């Protein structure tokens, strides 16, 4: 049983110089056999394990991670959470996640620093205005809070934006989702890891999957760098490396893995208390609690697993940021990094069974998976436990690429994929 985190535990541990905190999760060696194994110890994978144990009583399970937990895209994203997607299926999926976010810190007894500071999407041309207004109406029909803001209201909500009509891409308005916001990305992985570990889930780090053993159309287990693990159910949550693992099982996925970059500035005093995204000029910005501006750039056009990305992509984004926020012109950027995002042709994820019994995929989140972490874990756990999708992820099955029933969210993404 884990000790509860509270103000009292904080005070108590202060007296022992914070040297006697209980370990948040164990570091076990893999057992010979598990009821299910999750491949990938990012937020989505750990959340899947957590909900498998909590809601479906599957506690003899493991999460295997080739590096350290939360070291992939969970630690590389820009932490934006929103649910203002266009189509009904996406609205259901992302708002399910947003509703879990709203109570997540309490549920996990772990402060994920969820901050509903609002997310504003800017329109820079007539087509943007039409698309975003349409999206606002669609959101409201789906019960998602969304409002349209005229240019002066945009300025009022975020005064540092340059709303002059003389700039190259003038701000013609925007949408606002007030329930949207940000969260502390590492804390999400750590909170789920701690919660899952408490229920008996083995979190095995530095354990790389080398192969998937099949007997005909049924999975039998995993070859890993720590030996063979026997299991009847394997949930793959490997983000950018999903295709690599699918290849081990003899499957092909409709994914392309590309570097997506982000960068942060030097820390400054509070200057922007919301998240502003702009599709047309491809720039989005928020400010972390440490004071750094967190800036998201675009993906490269080519497939790469290098976690780097090209300089010209960053340059484009910063040009746009400077035009929209002249106040940032003298800020220095501190760090830049890349993550490998697995992008589906319709820019929607896959949470699905496969043609191989016992093999499940949760992938294709592309450039925007962080926001869905709790919902994705919950629905993927349901899919694995019942061998059937939940009604909220039924549309996100892999067969949609055969039936043609795509969930095309290219237009509704806040930035171009």
């Amino acid at each position: 049983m884990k000790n509860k985190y509270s103000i009292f535990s904080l005070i108590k541990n202060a007296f022992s110089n914070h040297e006697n905190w209980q370990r948040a999760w164990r570091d076990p060696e893999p057992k010979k056999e598990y009821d299910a194994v999750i491949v990938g110890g990012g937020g989505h994978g750990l959340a899947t394990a957590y909900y498998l144990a909590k809601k479906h009583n599957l506690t003899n399970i493991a999460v295997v991670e080739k590096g350290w937990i939360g070291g992939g895209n969970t630690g590389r994203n820009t932490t934006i959470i929103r649910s203002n997607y266009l189509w009904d299926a996406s609205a259901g999926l992302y708002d399910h996640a947003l509703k879990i976010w709203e109570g997540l810190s309490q549920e996990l007894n772990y402060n994920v620093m969820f901050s509903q500071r609002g997310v504003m999407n800017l329109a820079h041309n007539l087509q943007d205005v039409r698309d975003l207004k349409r999206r606002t109406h669609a959101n409201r029909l789906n019960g998602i809070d969304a409002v349209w803001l005229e240019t002066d209201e945009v300025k009022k909500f975020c005064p540092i934006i340059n709303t002059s009509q003389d700039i190259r891409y003038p701000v013609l308005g925007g949408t606002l989702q007030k329930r949207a916001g940000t969260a502390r990305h590492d804390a999400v992985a750590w909170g789920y890891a701690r919660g899952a570990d408490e229920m008996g889930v083995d979190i095995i780090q530095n354990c790389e999957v080398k192969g998937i053993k099949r007997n005909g159309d049924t999975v039998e287990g995993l070859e890993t760098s720590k030996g063979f693990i026997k299991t009847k159910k394997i949930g793959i949550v490997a983000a950018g490396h999903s295709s690599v693992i699918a290849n081990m099982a003899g499957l092909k996925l409709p994914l392309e893995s590309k570097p997506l970059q982000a960068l942060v500035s030097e820390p400054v005093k509070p200057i922007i208390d919301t998240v502003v995204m702009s599709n047309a000029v491809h720039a989005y910005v928020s400010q972390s609690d440490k004071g750094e501006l967190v800036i998201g750039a675009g993906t490269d056009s080519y497939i790469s697993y290098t976690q780097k990305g090209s300089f010209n992509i960053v340059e484009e984004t910063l040009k746009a940021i400077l035009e929209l926020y002249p106040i940032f012109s003298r800020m220095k950027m501190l760090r830049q990094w890349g993550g490998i995002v697995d992008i589906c042709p319709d820019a929607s994820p896959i949470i699905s069974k496969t043609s191989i019994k016992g093999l499940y995929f949760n992938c294709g989140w592309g450039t925007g998976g962080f926001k869905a972490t709790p919902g994705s874990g919950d629905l993927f756990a349901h899919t694995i436990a019942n061998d059937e999708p939940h009604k909220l992820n039924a549309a996100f099955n892999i067969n949609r690429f055969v039936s043609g029933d795509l969930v095309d969210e290219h237009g509704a993404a806040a930035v171009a994929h």
Partner: protein
Amino acid sequence: MFLINCPYCGVRDQSEFVSGGEAHIARPKQPTELNDDQWAEYLFMRKNIKGIQFERWNHVHGCRKWFNVARDTSNDKIEKIYKMGEQPPKI
């Protein structure tokens, strides 16, 4: 970020080019005879290889010609550049 030796223009920065994805995916000769699975395979399914991958590139801010590249996606090192219509090299 890397350089690409365009077979028509010479060495240029990668930002002058755009990737057209996986190469050697032949358009079906008899589209009407394909079933849905075969269409899905042709349209959407990709190898997405970590390692040497054959792909198409276009020198979009230059000669605007297409050509093929054999590139290691794990380190962005280009192994071979060859023209459209040529067979992939053995690497």
